[in-house]
Every structure is written in structure tokens, then in C-alpha cells.
């Protein structure tokens, strides 16, 4: 398989659970990693971000090598340009919405940080809420701040951990639209981790079915649905429908 310009991940490890997976995501492509809870989806995402160190493997993104067990390369998270949106949003409670976004702008000149943060918040339809603390924002607003913060980093890859998990119907629709438009705007690999098969199918270009830390099948959503590689995959796909 040729070196992709986007994200290329091959990892193996035991902590916190055993995992052995390989996947890739091209620029301007959205990959959904789908699997039941406990399948290790978050762990894979954390490997890409540098929050978990695999035992063996290689992670490359945008021409950079972020991790390579063979040659001992292991960039810490703050040296990898990832935009990570956590399931719990993980906003800094002691900072305002503006402050949260500004924290991720350390690479930008000081004079520009405020302005850039404002623009990002505006892009996420959060004008007027800049001075609010996370505790004063709704769930949907918090998520958008988290998104803005991730984008502020000017990342080489976007990672979203269960973005649909805690949101209500209305927010889900808004998020869906947001992510869809983002996909078109940024030419970044976007990796989405979810157990919600429905949304994954609608949004993603590629899907990766994961179970017990192993990739069972990769391909376009339709492909997987029509031609599941195994009974296990079929079962998971069906189960995901409920």
C-alpha cells in the first residue's frame, strides 16, 4: 500500500486493552471507526493523538512520522498537530469560551490570538458567547467550542471521539451539517469514532469496523453493508441498526 498523504496508522499494543489495527484516511476524507463499546475505538484515536503509546507500529500524517517503534520516534501530543474533540468535550473550566480556543493558538503570534479565536467561534455560530464559561454553555454549545478549539490548532488531522453520543436530536442534526461542511472546507483527514452506525454511514467516505481491538473490515459504508466480510461483521452492522 502506497504512502497516503493523509493519515496512515498501523499499531499494536496491550495497554489499556489489547489492540492490533491498521487504517488510513486521505486528506479531505472522513473515516468512521465503528464498533460496539469496549472495542477499543477510543484507544486507537488516542494512539493517533499521542496520548497512548502503542507497543509497535507506525503512525504517519501529512508526510510527518509521528510514531515509529522501529526507529524509536514518539512525538508527544503537543508536538503533533491534532485536533481532538473529546467525548466529554474536556473544555478548560477555568477559562471562557474565547480563552479555551485561544489556548490552542500558542503557535500563532500573540497579537493575533484573540482575533483568530473570535473568528473561529463565529464560524461555529457562537458569537456573543465568547465570555461565557463552559459551565454556562449548553451541551451543544460546548461541543462547538471544543470543535473551534480543535480547529484553532491548525491540525493535520481531526479526531472526534463519539461526537453523537451525548447530544439530543436537534443538536445532532446541527452537528451533522457542521461536520459535513467541515469536510468540504478543510482538506484534512477526519477520523470519527462512533457506535452510531447510521450517522457513520451518512457522513463517512470510509468505514472501519472494529471489535476487540481488531479491524474486521474496511471500506465504503455501502460496500460493508452489502458485502460484509464475515458473519461477525454482518452481526455488528445489523446490531448497529437498532
Amino acid at each position, binding site marked *: 500500500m502506497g504512502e497516503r498523504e493523509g493519515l496512515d496508522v498501523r499499531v499494536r499494543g496491550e495497554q489499556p486493552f489489547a489492540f492490533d489495527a491498521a487504517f488510513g484516511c486521505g486528506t479531505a476524507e472522513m473515516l468512521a471507526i465503528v464498533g460496539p463499546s469496549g472495542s477499543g475505538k477510543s484507544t486507537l484515536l488516542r494512539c493517533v493523538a499521542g496520548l497512548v503509546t502503542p507497543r509497535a507500529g507506525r503512525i504517519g500524517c501529512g508526510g510527518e512520522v509521528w510514531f515509529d517503534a522501529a526507529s524509536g520516534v514518539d512525538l508527544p501530543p*503537543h508536538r503533533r498537530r491534532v485536533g481532538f474533540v473529546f467525548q*466529554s468535550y474536556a473544555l478548560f473550566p477555568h477559562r471562557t469560551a474565547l480563552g479555551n480556543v485561544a489556548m*490552542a493558538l500558542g503557535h500563532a503570534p500573540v497579537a493575533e490570538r484573540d482575533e483568530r479565536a473570535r473568528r473561529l467561534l463565529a464560524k461555529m455560530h457562537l458569537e456573543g458567547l465568547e465570555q461565557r464559561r463552559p459551565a454556562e454553555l449548553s451541551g451543544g454549545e460546548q461541543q462547538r467550542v471544543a470543535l473551534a478549539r480543535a480547529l484553532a*490548532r491548525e491540525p493535520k488531522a481531526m479526531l472526534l471521539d463519539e461526537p453523537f453520543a451525548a447530544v439530543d436530536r436537534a443538536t445532532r442534526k446541527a452537528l451533522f451539517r457542521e461536520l459535513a461542511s467541515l469536510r468540504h472546507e478543510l482538506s484534512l483527514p477526519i477520523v470519527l469514532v462512533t457506535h452510531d452506525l447510521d450517522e457513520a454511514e451518512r457522513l463517512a467516505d470510509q468505514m472501519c469496523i472494529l471489535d476487540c481491538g481488531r479491524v474486521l473490515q474496511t471500506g465504503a459504508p455501502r460496500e460493508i453493508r452489502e458485502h460484509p466480510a464475515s458473519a461477525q461483521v454482518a452481526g455488528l452492522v445489523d446490531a448497529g441498526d437498532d
Partner: protein
Amino acid sequence: MDRSALALSFRLGAFTVLLLLPIGVALGRWLAFTRLRGKGGAEVALSLPLVLPPTVLGYYLLLAFGGGSALGRGFEAIFGHTLAFSFEGLLAASVIANLPFAIQPMQRSFEGIAPEIREAAACSGLSPWQVLGRIDLPLAWPGIAGGLVLAFAHTLGEFGVVLMVGGSIPGETRTASIVIYDRVQAFDTAGAGAMSALLLVLSIVALGVVQLLSSRVGRRHG
């Protein structure tokens, strides 16, 4: 009211707290975030002064830096006076005796920071030092302050260790609590009573402050 003894007690408390700030933050944070296997052992060792009888602590400290020890002789060679029976000796003993009082609240405070917040900080480009300064310390400060206040109040009341390591040398190692002991032996019940009342009030105030701060910790991470 023995003012020089009170001043001495306050100075001892202040310097103890000054030293415990970096030590407590470093150790409390390390204990909160490390996943090392030996962590439990370290926690036990650092909690020892909590349960150890003060005289046992005093005994071992004297052994460690009393007149005959290598540490004691080295100190004397450099500074011209003994480590035991001096303010410095008291300070060393006080810092060790107060380690758990400072470390434990600080550790709890750091543990109270959701790991994802620190992960998000790292992903936002903050180096480990920046995470310490912009995330850990601001979020954990109530516990840090609480630990320091507790250590200060506890230092004011130290007796057994102070008496063994410092003796009762006026202006040097005779702290307020020792003066109270001495006043009783001098049949000066009024003097003993006055100082005791003062220390009691200070202890209550200190505990009140700690209480206030720990409720803030709850609210921050709620």
C-alpha cells in the same frame, strides 16, 4: 504573652510552608498522575509522619542529624553551628513532619482534575510545563492552599519533635507550644492560659480556611 516565642512559631510555620510549596506540589502531582507500580509504597512512606509518634520521629531525626551524625557534622562545618538545637534543624524536622499534611490535600486536588482536560491541553499544543502552569496549578490551587494552611497550623502546634530536635532554647527553638509547657512548669497558669487560648483560636481559624478552600475544590470540578 511571650512574643518572641510566638514570632518564632510563626517564622517556623512560614518557612515550613515556603519549602513545602514546591515539595508538596511536586510530590502531590507526581502521586496523582503517575502510574508507577511503586506508587503505593511511596504514599505509605510519605504518610508515615501522620501516624508516627512524634518522639519516634524526633528520635530518628536526631539520629540523622544530631551531633554525632555525618549530616550534623557536615552542617556544622559549613555553617558554624549545629543542625540540632537550631532553627534550621527545627525547620528540617518540621518539613518532614508536615509532608503528609501538605501532600495529601494537594494530591487529592490534582486527582480531581479530569484526565481528559489535561489530555485536551496536550492536544491543544501545551507542553508539559505549560500544562502544569496553565491547567494543573490553576485548577488545583484550592487543594494546594489548603495543604499549606494545614501544614502551617500543624507547625504552630508541634511539640514532641520540636522538643527533641530543638530543645527549648529561647529565641532559637523555644516555640509557642514549648513556652506553654514551660509556663505550666513555672506555675504561671495565667501565661500558659493566654498562649493556649491564642493558639486555639489560630487553629480554629486555620481549619475554617481549609474548610472553605476544600468546598471550592468541590465546586470547581462539579
